[in-house]
């Protein structure tokens, strides 16, 4: 495996609009979320949380800021706000640490997770706290240490497997498909595999083709696993905790470019629901379904769209397998137009499956064919100019919405 670039170097800021405006997010009804449906926060980009303000008051008004901007608050004002501010990789670590404190059978295995602290610092200092066996530095043998984690899970532990880059887990496909996904079934339900497989994937900044893969499209057919993708510090921590507590094998997809997102998250403990989608911005005209990094391209495009008079509804699907057909369906029934924006390749990606699922379930509610914007079926080039055009850019999203809403 080629050396991973240092986290700091690789995750340069997307744009000035990539961090949440901490001032604007207010969680008035913050409660400890149990893993039950309907308990997710509706986080609106202008800072309101669900139930606080009736929607119709703002109808017809131009929302000047459809996407959260960088925090411009002074330190004095942040001190009085509830919650604490941290970066996405710190949120992941916080979730991980809380779960490791809570349950001694939770352990971490992966390359450079221990002494090095993780190539993206998600496990920084954990080895010092919990020891070298509980935060295990493995040799470079993905297939075998993934299988080892599965064997440990079968015999009572709850390992978290880190792929230094999700692409490396291609070498672990044997174990992930055959043992992780299927073993509960072929053993007639005798053995459960409560593992979490996590790591950074997606297209970064000129990392080259092999370090820029989107493995969610390859893993989605494996029966018996769940896949979630985090996109904000808030949902990163919540999904990490939910994944660890789940009895099912869960693959948690992080993104190389999102690790330095900053957000203010609650001090109280919270666990999100693995199977639910997240309403990012309610709207009326079109449903935009997205996940991971593309959420930010969508929100950037939404700013432009709002200025042009459109009202897009943006949903971060979060659960890549299974899809939250309830949230998605309700949205489709309201707007009748669907745009999917994803980073997977055109062929066989999450978008392709989502298109099929929506067509199957909500065909009657559609006023137009589903439009799916995906990355091109091209090995991600190193050159920045070429890399930029392999993934979906906000301008394309704006154009697609305009065409869809004609």
């Amino acid at each position, binding site marked *: 495996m080629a050396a991973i670039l240092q986290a700091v170097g690789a995750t340069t800021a997307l744009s000035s609009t990539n961090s949440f405006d901490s001032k604007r997010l207010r969680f008035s009804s913050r409660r400890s979320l149990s893993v039950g449906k309907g308990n997710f926060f509706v986080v609106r980009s202008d800072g309101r949380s669900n139930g606080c303000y009736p929607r119709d008051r703002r109808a017809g008004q131009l929302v000047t800021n459809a996407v959260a901007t960088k925090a411009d608050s002074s330190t004095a004002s942040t001190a009085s706000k509830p919650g604490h501010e941290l970066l996405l990789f710190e949120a992941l670590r916080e979730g991980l640490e809380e779960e490791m404190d809570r349950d001694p059978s939770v352990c971490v295995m992966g390359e450079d997770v221990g002494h090095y602290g993780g190539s993206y610092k998600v496990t920084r200092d954990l080895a010092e706290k919990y020891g070298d066996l509980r935060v295990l530095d493995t040799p470079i043998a993905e297939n*075998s240490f*993934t299988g080892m984690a599965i*064997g440990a899970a079968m015999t009572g532990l709850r390992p978290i497997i880190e792929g230094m880059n999700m692409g490396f887990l291609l070498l672990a496909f044997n174990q992930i498909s*055959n043992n992780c996904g299927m073993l509960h079934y072929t*053993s*007639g339900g005798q053995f459960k595999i409560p593992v979490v497989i996590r790591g950074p994937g997606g297209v970064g900044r000129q990392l080259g083709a092999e370090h820029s893969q989107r493995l969610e499209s390859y893993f989605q057919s494996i029966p*018996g696993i769940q896949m979630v993708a985090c996109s904000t510090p808030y949902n990163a921590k919540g999904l990490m905790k939910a994944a660890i507590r789940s009895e099912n094998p869960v693959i948690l997809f992080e993104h190389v470019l999102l690790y330095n997102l900053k957000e203010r998250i609650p001090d109280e403990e919270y666990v999100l629901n693995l199977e639910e989608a997240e309403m990012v911005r309610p709207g009326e005209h079109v449903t935009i379904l997205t996940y991971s990094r593309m959420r930010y391209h969508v929100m950037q495009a939404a700013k432009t769209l709002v200025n042009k008079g459109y009202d897009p509804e943006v949903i971060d699907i979060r659960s890549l397998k299974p899809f*939250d057909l309830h949230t998605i369906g309700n949205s489709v029934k309201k707007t009748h137009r669907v745009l999917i924006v994803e980073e997977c390749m055109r062929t066989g990606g999450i978008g392709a499956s989502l298109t099929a699922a929506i067509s199957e379930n909500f065909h009657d509610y559609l006023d137009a064919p589903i439009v799916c914007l995906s990355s091109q079926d091209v090995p991600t080039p190193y050159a920045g100019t070429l890399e930029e055009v392999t993934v979906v850019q906000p301008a394309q999203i704006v154009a697609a919405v305009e065409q869809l809403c004609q």
Partner: protein
Amino acid sequence: MSCAFATIQSLPLTPENHSINPLKTSSPFLGFTRHLRLNPLDNNKSPSASIRRRQSSVVAVSDVVKEKKLKSNSSLSNLLITKEEGLELYEDMVLGRTFEDMCAQMYYRGRMFGFVHLYNGQEAVSTGFIKLLRKEDCVVSTYRDHVHALSKGVPARQVMSELFGKTTGCCRGQGGSMHMFSKEFNVLGGFAFIGEGIPVATGAAFTSKYRREVLKEADSDHVTLAFFGDGTCNNGQFFECLNMAALWKLPIVFVVENNLWAIGMSHLRATSDPEIWKKGPAFGMPGVHVDGMDVLKVREVAVEAVARARRGDGPTLVECETYRFRGHSLADPDELRDPAEKAHYATRDPIAALKNYMIENKLVNEAELKAIDKKIDEVIEDSVEFADASPLPPRSQLLENVFADPKGFGIGPDGRYRCEDPKFTEGTAHV
């Protein structure tokens, strides 16, 4: 008939013997493949590879045992087993053999399907190792796993039912021949792809160490055995796990059942250095070569290897030279193996060898062994009857074990979890 037990104090364990005629020794390893079907067995020719193999020394045999072997008289106190142990070993091997023979019958009568891989001839390895284990020790095997499950204690009824695809099988009929699992007896599979069980075994051993060192369970010393074949020893997962197990001193024993053939691929044609036991020291663990057709020799080595693992001294690689009397699977016409090779190994049948040993050393008499044979026949007949009478899995079973937590099927358009839909419990929902 050349019987391994008759000359217990001689070869193959002493390193000094350099010029051996393979046929005259007690347990020759003959690489017949060079001659295949072209030349009949030539008594004077001795393939050099197999000669070099003869010099392997058993590394971890205890001194007590070595001393016993030097004494030439076979008084009872010098025997390697007691009568009770002998009967237990005999019964287990006969159970394995009779079960596998019944499988063949049932397969050809259309009661079981798919790929069925039988263990005939290799019983000494399974019995020699597994009978030493405790219930909480783990066994991981390959697709040739019926006998490993039986030796570990899984009732023959459950294994036979599983093979018939019935809901009373150990895996509810969902696994089949290649996926024998038992939580109660700690049989962790049953894997169809070679090599993929070895990391799982390494993980089970990791749990044992984790329990002791992290969870502070002082009595956690359970051992894991990983069984696999010669073909697997050229696979990456094998080497990766040898490395990790030695690195972390995991309580595992890697047992290679070298039966010389991977379907139709001879071990010598696939492997640059066919002496698998040598690969152990390369990773920092002892490598032991043992005659896998001799249950007492296997057991001797197993005692030491298992004790080593339990003590926390780390893994051992044990290469058991053995042979399968039948083809790779019931679908294999088995045309490539030299009939002379098969005939030769048939004379080294481990069950016959143990029987002779016990009778010659006056541990048991014929009648006692015949009683065991009869008892096992009845057990097997009963298992077939049970399997026959058992119900097939109903449709409602289809979706039950896909997820440990069925919320994993997701939320449906109506807002409810899909698993709450009655079609799920009926098995008719489409996922």
